[in-house]
């Protein structure tokens, strides 16, 4: 596999909370793992187990209470365009059109239009929004908005894309469709993705590697390398077997 892009080194995170016993609540406990270039890594764990916090720390939105995160040997302290993110709550800029949102990153960094406009168009086409370039987010459905969110992250050409339960707020049918499309885009672009979810099926469908987390405070329980060839079928024997095994692993924790 490729070289290490992100290295999490004994990360822990505590929040102050008056409700908790010692006035703080621990959400991450000594978490260490690497994300390797070109790999689709999925962090899988129950809801509220600190996965989102971990992703926010890697993005640079939050700082860890202990340990450090390195991006190619540089410690992460602030958000940077080398680490793109797709949020569960999408966070498009409502005053910009689809094209405006997708091309926002390169534009604010002062990159030449000739350089980024064709690329923005390419990703708008790739997520299936051709013809919606001049539409404002308010006119788009949830699924379409998240397609813009994905295109926006890709268009900025980051070193790694962090995806925080990007399909968590979508209905089941749209979710299946989006998983399939994301898998296609990833096979085409072969970029590094770190994807957070609490959905086992989604994890097995998308991942090269699954890292299973325990309940709060989150610790790494187990890692799976997924070698099922793509495109994967949700009903194939090997898919179902793996799904069963991981489900058992997680139920064990309950």
């Amino acid at each position, binding site marked *: 596999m490729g070289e290490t892009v992100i290295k999490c080194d004994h990360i822990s995170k505590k929040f102050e909370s008056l409700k908790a016993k010692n006035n703080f609540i621990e959400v991450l406990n000594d978490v260490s793992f690497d994300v390797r270039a070109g790999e689709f890594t999925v962090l899988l764990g129950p809801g509220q187990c600190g996965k989102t916090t971990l992703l926010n720390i890697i*993005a640079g939105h939050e700082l860890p209470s202990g340990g450090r995160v390195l991006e190619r040997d540089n410690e992460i302290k602030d958000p940077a365009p080398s680490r793109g993110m797709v949020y569960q709550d999408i*966070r498009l800029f409502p*005053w*910009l059109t689809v094209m405006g949102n997708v091309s*926002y990153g390169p534009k*604010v960094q002062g990159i030449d239009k000739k350089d980024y406009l064709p690329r923005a168009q390419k990703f708008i086409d790739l997520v299936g929004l051709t013809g919606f370039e001049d539409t404002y987010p308010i006119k788009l459905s949830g699924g379409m908005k998240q397609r813009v969110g994905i295109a926006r992250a890709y268009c*900025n050409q980051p070193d790694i894309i962090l995806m925080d339960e990007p399909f968590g707020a979508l209905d089941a049918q749209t979710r299946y469709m989006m998983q399939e499309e994301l898998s296609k885009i990833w096979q085409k672009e072969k970029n590094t993705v770190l994807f957070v979810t609490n959905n086992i099926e989604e994890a097995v469908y998308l991942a090269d590697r699954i890292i299973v987390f325990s309940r709060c405070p989150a610790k790494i329980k187990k890692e799976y390398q997924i070698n099922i060839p793509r495109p994967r079928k949700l009903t194939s024997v090997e898919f179902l077997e793996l799904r069963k095994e991981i489900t058992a692993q997680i139920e064990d924790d309950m």
Partner: protein
Amino acid sequence: MKKRKTNIQWERLIYGGAAILLFLVIWQILVKPGSAKFATPLEVGEFILQHITTKVGPCTIWGHAGWSLSRVGVGYILAAAAGIVLALLMSQSKVCNIILHPLFDLLRPIPPIAWVPLAILWFGIFEKAKYFIIFIGAFVPFVMNTYTGAVRVDKKLIDAALMLGTPPRTIFFRVVFPAIVPQIFAGAQVALTNAWMTVIGAEMARATEGVGWMILKGMENADMAQIVSGMAVIGVTGFLIAALMRWLEKHLIKWNVRER
């Protein structure tokens, strides 16, 4: 969908128009023509029609409305500039907020009309005093709305902008300002209505022309038609101003059409 919307618009127009007509008819029936305490709609209509071409005092009805509107225009634009700048300063700089916010909160409850005596002492009885009073009336909603919008800008949008590589010093122009344009517009609507109400008060206090003057002069002459005509001009003009602002908002801020 589209067709249904047009239908609703027609419905509004027809029922709204019918209600106004009914109101005028009842008013006409209830008020005795030539009354010393009120005027009938027909008398008002006649007065207005007559004075579209002939003068009431120094100028025609158009002239009076024009005077009042031009005063509103000057005071309003000054208030918009000063109000938005002050609100942005208070929202972006903690020091400015600590110093200016209590001061603003203290002056805010004083109605614009209460400033009339001071305005006349400071600026004389002519135009400047009226600009000042209108300025006060429009300034408060501009500050309030812009400030509330600016402090409520979603921190998550700012995070997303930083993630995409926005240089931190440009966050204000890239995210904060565009995000609060709708709130500034909401403030601008309230401010314009306020300014229009304030100018009438200012003119009734001291003026030689304008719609407020028309009403006051009508009272001095016991001319009921002139008083009620002045009120009608205020109502219709205020209505048109509000409609214009709504139209502007709809066409300028396409990305955030507020449902009505």
